């Protein structure tokens, strides 16, 4: 570097300044190269924090691992997963989990959307009602389940009383296999519809007014406005709210466990309840972990589908496709 400076006839003082500048540039380049890694370090640590339990769960899921039979522990590789294929209980769990998640999301979406449309206009009354409607969301789901358990008690439950007035003398709510799913879905809807409502209401209120004004000037009927303008523009919000609820519903535990522990029979045996019972009651760690890994895979696939659709709709809303 110095030799080259001399070649161009620079003074020694200038050479020194130039050397310091070059050192500074080099240090700057190094810090620019290192900085991204430093900045991503916390994210990396969080990732490791997530991946260690996840990796452990996969590791356990590949083992014959019961705490009550420590002598029997060993790798059985995919046997836990293969066993599921021949177990009617597993297919029942899969079916119940998907039906529960599907029904709760659809019903809560419809109800949430309906309520949001009713509260769309910014008036004091609507704002007040929207705050009041959020109250169930502030209740812990397990408390809501216990509350409904009391309200559906055949001896003194108020809901049982109303059912008797309506002519359903022997309506057994969560105690009967034919009505158990309805009962837990009812609790889920009571707790989580406000979540859908508040997200969709925010979406509705943020929609630009111009398309609606133009449609009104052209005399487009209100229901056509809803189908052709409101719903397509609201779709990213619908998908976001549905995704959040789907992820939650497919992993349902507290409401079902508090109400029926997965019964009567296996009527409400969803993944989380089954895995919980396998772990804490049967101490069958291998099977419990395998169930949770399958649940993770289902959740991953479903959320990917949702996110891809959400991105596509967002691009369309921006006019990019």
């Amino acid at each position: 570097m110095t030799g080259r400076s001399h070649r161009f006839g620079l003074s020694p003082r200038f050479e020194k300044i130039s050397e310091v500048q070059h050192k500074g540039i080099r240090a700057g380049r190094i810090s620019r190269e290192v900085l991204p890694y430093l900045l991503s370090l916390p994210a990396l640590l969080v990732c490791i924090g997530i991946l260690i339990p996840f990796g452990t769960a996969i590791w356990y899921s590949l083992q014959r691992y019961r705490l009550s039979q420590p002598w029997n522990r060993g790798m059985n590789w995919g046997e836990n997963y293969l066993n599921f294929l021949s177990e009617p209980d597993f297919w029942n769990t899969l079916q119940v989990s998907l039906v529960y998640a599907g029904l709760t999301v659809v019903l809560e979406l419809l109800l949430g959307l309906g309520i949001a449309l009713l509260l769309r206009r910014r008036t004091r009354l609507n704002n007040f009602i929207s705050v009041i409607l959020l109250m169930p969301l502030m209740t812990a789901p397990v408390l809501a389940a216990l509350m409904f358990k009391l309200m559906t008690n055949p001896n003194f439950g108020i809901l049982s009383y109303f059912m008797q007035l309506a002519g359903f003398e022997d309506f057994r709510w969560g105690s009967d296999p034919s009505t158990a799913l309805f009962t837990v879905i009812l609790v889920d809807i009571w707790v989580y519809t406000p979540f859908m409502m508040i997200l969709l209401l925010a979406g509705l209120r943020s929609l630009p007014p111009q398309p609606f004004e133009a449609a009104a000037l052209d005399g487009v009927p209100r229901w056509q406005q809803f189908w052709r303008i409101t719903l397509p523009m609201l779709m990213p919000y619908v998908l976001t709210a549905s995704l959040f609820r789907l992820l939650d519903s497919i992993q349902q535990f507290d409401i079902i466990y508090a109400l029926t522990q997965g019964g009567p029979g296996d009527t409400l045996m969803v993944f989380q309840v089954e895995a919980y019972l396998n772990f804490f009651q049967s101490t069958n760690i291998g099977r419990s972990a395998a169930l949770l890994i399958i649940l993770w895979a289902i959740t991953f696939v479903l959320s990917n589908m949702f996110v891809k659709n959400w991105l596509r709709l967002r691009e369309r809303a921006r006019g990019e496709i």
Partner: protein
Amino acid sequence: MHEKERDLVSAFMRGEMDRRELIRGLGALGVTAGTAGTLLNMAATKAMAADFDWMKHSGKSIKILLNKHPYTDALLANLDNFKSMTGMEVAYDIFPEDVYFDKVTAALSSRSSEYDAFMVGAYMTWTYGPAGWIVDHNEWIMDSDKTNPAYNWTDMIEGVRKSCAWNGRPGGALGSDDAMQWCVPWGYEQNNLSYNAAMLENSGIGIPNNLDELMEAAAKVQADNEGIYGIGVRGSRSWATIHPGFLSAYSNLGEVDLNVSADGKLSAAMNTDASKEFHAKWVKMIQDSGAADWSSHTWYQVGTDLGAGKSAIIYDADILGYFMNGGENAMAGQLAYAPFAASGNGAPTPNIWIWSLSMSKFSRDLDATWYFMQWATGTEHALFGARNMDFVNPVRQSVWDDPMFRDRIAQSYPGYVEMHDVSAPGAAIKFTAQPLFFDLTTEWAASLQKMVANEVPVDEGLDQLAESVNRQLNEAGLG
């Protein structure tokens, strides 16, 4: 304690007067029965300390894990006596039953040394013992250097004591000579009948003597008393549905849960003809006379419905009948008790639930912990709890023989002591000890729910259950 009272208690401790004379003497001095019990307990503690070096672990601390229960209340009420006698500190955590066993499992499976001892059901030790989480207490019970000579281990009711001992071999007999004492009994529950005497009288029904009579009585009392159901039994999707009245009746009829072959292999025994006949009757009894929301009934609903006058009879833990017959319950003072043999032949043979204490293998000081264990399961504390608190059912025969305890129970809970006396000789755990206990009994309960809901016929349901049980036993290398 005043001089005269102390003299009286000392004379009693020396055996110079009997219990009635003592109570009469204390009564003359204006001391109530409750206070007399406390005075006796203090004196007994002093006497106990005289024969054994209770101060050996003075200055040490232990921590125990407890379930919210009347046994725990009795323990805490008397704990200062232990602390002053030993100079030890005892810390504790108390959890409600809903989460209690999750907490125990989490603490033990993580090999945590936080808790030195904990409350446990005997069934749980079939998991904890083979997993290596709890100790074989024989090592301490049989060591005269570590155990108070007055501990009197054989005073524990035989069936109860043996039910806490297992050799760890699947299908191995409980209480065999090579068995390990996984837990030390503390209090226990027999499964018999508790009933609303007025309701049965209103229907002109006598006490049922076998399962058929029980079914008929439940149906008739329900028909004759408006707004109630006939029989309370558990129904939730849990192993706890199987162990009380259901298994007591099942085993009394000569049926077993599992067959054990000569080479120690296990196989399902729930689908024999006799078992199917029993299940069909049980299912019909619930359908005809059980609670409308039976499938969500745990011990809590079974007990409170009887106490609230919503049910006429329960076939469940006797202590539910005990607790519902007092306090603020609507039916307090109106309940009665009867020992029950489903076969109608011979004495009852109830299956039992045992609240016990176990020492964690991960305890940092097992010898010091054993001092607490032997005190908590000893005669003096059991007498204190039985006389002054609701420490029922005690596991020591000497407590059941205690006139003060018997008088107290006879006055407030007529028929309870007699029921216990008749049932105690046949009371024991009737399940086959094996490590899949919770899996198989929970599935049994789920099958029962399906049968009661008419989702599956009894025959078919039991065949399916047996097939599933055999598959699980084979997978675990037990079948």
